[in-house]
């Protein structure tokens, strides 16, 4: 009998470890991700239609099917520490093309949740920063205040100059409204974010 580890090629990243993992294609990590995301990821047969359709494919090293393969092999650190899960815009083109109806954007929702919970988010991850600021502003005000969101983002990334011209134009056109009122029931909003009834 030919074992998968006999024929697995040496991968480009973390040589050695991944080919060990390739011997056990359905790991507990894969089972957890499948259950929490509600996606039947073991059905993937690597047709790569998701990779062909993904709008982020030009900007990432790996496509959705590659990340899925890593999940199946149990490469948890590789996956949760990857840039790809954060670059996903949740457009669900993958799901619209997949013959097995797997939504990688739903899988990425779970992977991002878990990456945050288990401390895999790197300090220079501006996408994660943006989401975090969005959630904090929404939690404190119940509705977004877009100038506040952008001000916080610029401060946290220490990037004050980019888009300065655009920002000024938008303020002049009254498209950056600093007067958006806070939601009047802050307690209820806090409960929604904290998961309490």
């Amino acid at each position: 009998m030919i074992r998968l580890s006999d024929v697995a090629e040496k991968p480009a990243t973390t040589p050695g470890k991944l080919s060990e993992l390739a011997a056990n294609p359905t790991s507990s990590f894969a089972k957890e991700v499948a259950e929490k995301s509600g996606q039947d990821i073991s059905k993937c047969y690597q047709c790569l239609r998701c990779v062909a359709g993904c709008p982020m494919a030009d900007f990432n090293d790996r496509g959705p099917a590659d990340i899925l393969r890593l999940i199946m092999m149990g490469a948890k650190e590789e996956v949760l520490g990857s840039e790809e899960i954060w670059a996903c815009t949740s457009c669900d083109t993958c799901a619209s093309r997949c013959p097995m109806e797997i939504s990688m954007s739903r899988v990425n929702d779970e992977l991002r949740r878990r990456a945050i919970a288990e401390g895999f988010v790197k300090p220079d991850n501006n996408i994660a920063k943006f989401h975090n600021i969005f959630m904090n502003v929404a939690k404190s005000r119940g509705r977004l205040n877009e100038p506040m969101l952008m001000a916080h983002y610029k401060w946290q990334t220490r990037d004050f100059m980019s888009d300065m011209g655009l920002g000024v134009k938008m303020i002049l056109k009254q498209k950056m409204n600093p007067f958006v009122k806070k939601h009047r029931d802050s307690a209820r909003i806090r409960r929604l974010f904290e998961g309490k009834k």
Partner: protein
Amino acid sequence: MTTKFSYFPGCSLHSTAREYDLSARAVCAALGVELVELKDWNCCGATSAHATAPDTAHALGMSNLALAEKEKMDIVTPCSSCFSRLKACEMEAREDGCKGEEFKGEISARHLAEVLCDEVGPDRMSPLIRKPFKDLKAAVYYGCLMVRPFAALPGSDPENPTLMDGCLKLAGVTTVPWSYNTDCCGAGLSAPKPKVVESMTNRLAETAREAGAECFITACPLCQLNLDTRQTIANPLPVFFFTEILGWAMDLPGAAAWFPKHMISPQALLRG
């Protein structure tokens, strides 16, 4: 035809997409569709909530649906992201028979494009078109979220919706054949990854020009914002909201005030 709805503007319509709110309200008023802004609506969570805290995303959606259910009217929103989130939460709750939820499934989340272009429809809209465009060639950019979840807009193809085309044609628009009408604009990556979004919007713009378009017409505040602010090609295309097109063609008072809010000026196309 339903004539009264709870209105969910969403956070952008009070700020970066002001002209969408103004034009949507004006067109609805002209067509006899009454919008009652849902008191105490909360942010739908957009992408950031479901992308980092799925339980919170669900709670935010259910909160709005429960509030809307008390008003006993369907909840309509012009924002594709808010629609997608409200609809996803509604469908998740319904799948479980609304067990354990305050929301009991008595009302539905609706996209304004479906209410105006299908429920009201071209026949009722036609008598109000007084100043149609003269063959305005447009790439109608639906964006991805209007058709997510895939069953959110029954009758619409998730890769090639045509919902708005009929009413836009009434307004004097020629919709160009274009295969990118649901291709992602880059969404919330505009702040953290502006170069990526530039690349994506430029591709939409170049292919739209190739197809013969003079402008984009869209129904999502973030799509409009990205297309309006991130095109770096030599002759960028102006980006309209579909309600601005309809409102202009209906010759509604105050319509002229919407267009100066665009970054890429559409004035040349309005003189048509």
